[in-house]
């Protein structure tokens, strides 16, 4: 009986061999179908990024040089990076705290009620509402002849700008950025809050725990990775923002994106294109680090609050 089975060479080639060769050809043809997508992404995303990297190390005459990178250590560029980081960090923290409070307020409401849906929809719009339109909105509100400015001056005698016009400098940017940071926090943090199961609250209470203990010992540690991750996302969002500052600030290029614009379009200080590329490279490095940390924290969150 064993002899009949033991003569494999007298039967047709094993199906696995034929399948493997077939799979190879099909796999190549399958990959072909994704070529348009990859080609497009390479041309319009990968190549520009690589151009920025390569040009950061290119001098004005064309050769390889490290002078652009070392120029990043110049006083005014370091100042710009510091101000960008301070602006992003402060608006991220303020936006995260206020956004988390608003998200918690939504979570305690009826899950499919009008309130939650309306506020979520509004957050979706306001998170995207950046740039020129937001700058003009704030100019109309607390600009020099804005609604609130005039109201305060006429009815309450308060001059908002008694100590200088801060709207067009860093403090003004901080206020304006918070306007889109808070809705973004709501959008990003709400799913994490939804992942908190009511059973955990009940369990805490049945074991005799107080609200304080619930928040510091149970929900807090569970939400911490999500909260930190969202804060990092807000940081990256503020750090990359350009349009709002470009429309609002006209003197001094206080933050890095405006310095980059200056390096590219200034008609006074010429020959700074490659320095602009180096600053862009610096920005990518900072944002990449932040987003990397965010991805790590996202995985932690998914483990507990999926």
């Amino acid at each position, binding site marked *: 009986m064993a002899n009949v089975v033991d003569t494999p060479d007298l039967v047709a080639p094993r199906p696995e061999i034929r399948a493997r060769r077939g799979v190879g050809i099909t796999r190549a043809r399958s990959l072909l179908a994704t070529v348009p997508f990859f080609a497009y992404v390479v041309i319009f995303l990968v*190549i*520009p990024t690589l151009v920025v990297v390569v040009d950061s190390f290119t001098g004005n005459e064309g050769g390889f040089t490290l002078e652009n990178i070392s120029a990043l250590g110049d006083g005014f560029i370091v100042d710009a990076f510091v101000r960008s980081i301070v602006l992003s960090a402060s608006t991220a923290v303020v936006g995260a705290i206020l956004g988390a409070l608003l998200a918690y307020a939504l979570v305690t409401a009826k899950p499919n009620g009008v309130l939650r849906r309306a506020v979520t929809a509004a957050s979706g719009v306001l998170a995207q509402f950046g740039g020129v339109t937001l700058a003009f909105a704030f100019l109309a*509100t607390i600009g020099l002849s804005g609604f609130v400015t005039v109201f305060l001056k006429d009815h309450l005698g308060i001059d908002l700008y008694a100590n200088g016009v801060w709207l067009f400098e860093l403090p003004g940017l901080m206020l304006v950025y918070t306007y889109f940071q808070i809705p973004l926090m709501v959008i990003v943090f709400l799913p994490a809050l939804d992942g908190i199961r009511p059973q955990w609250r009940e369990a805490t209470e049945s074991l005799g725990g107080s609200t304080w203990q619930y928040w510091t010992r149970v929900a807090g540690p569970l939400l911490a990775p999500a909260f930190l991750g969202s804060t990092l996302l807000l940081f990256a969002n503020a750090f990359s923002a*350009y349009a709002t500052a470009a429309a609002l600030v006209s003197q001094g290029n206080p933050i890095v994106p405006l310095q980059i614009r200056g390096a590219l379009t200034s008609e006074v200080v010429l020959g700074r294109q490659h320095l602009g590329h180096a600053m862009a490279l610096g920005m990518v490095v900072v944002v990449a680090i932040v987003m990397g940390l965010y991805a790590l924290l996202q995985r932690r969150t998914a483990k507990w609050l999926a």
Partner: protein
Amino acid sequence: MAGLIARRARRQRAFRWIVLVLLGAFFLLPLIAMVEFASRGGGQSWRLLVDWPQLRETYPDLASGIVASLGQAVLTALLMLVLLVPTAVWVRLRLPGLRRLIEFICLLPLTIPAIVLVVGLAPVYAWVNYFLGGSSLTLTFAYTILVLPYAYRSIDTGLSAIDVKTLAEAARSLGAGWGRVMWRVVLPNIRSAVLSAAFLTVALVLGEFTIASLLHRDNLQVAIELLGKSSATMSVAVSLAALVLAFILLLLLSLFGERRKASR
């Protein structure tokens, strides 16, 4: 226990209302201020907004910016769909190993700020200008990259909700070609996801300023900024109109999404 829950519910309701009122005031104030500001000067701005021929004559730059932005929005939505939907479906069906790579690529634009992208796009656009001219509509290529993260997430979620494999295999076994499978089997089933991606694209394109400004092309936001230098009230009026339009779009999107879910 019941008393505890009721007390907590009351505290939460009070907390909810305080937070909503305070933050609501903060968010509504600029919008009210925009309405008030734009109405200064006798409401002329509002009248011009609805009178297209008059608008085109008084503010030709603004009119061309609006037309350019609308064209860019439509083209970007189309290009995004043509690129993403077949690729996402194909990867799910045939190349599951590539899924993480595609996800990573589609999240890259979030890591590369638009200001950095536009710095590197200059030589690429020199070639685009060579082949296709310097029209503002060529910004579509850059915009499609910008919308990738949001559009991909939307389409991927939509594809996860349906069983693409079974549908595709069933259609193929009945003799349909791949084109038919995509167009008549898969697409109708992810209609809400596709619409969601399209609406997000339009909202993003209408609000984009960085790339258009630094590549010196026409765009709604660029036109609004230029307008702000000559007429403050009109620029605020147009900003508010653009914002309201985006809000209506996203509201329709969420309503449409609700209806689809309800009809299941």
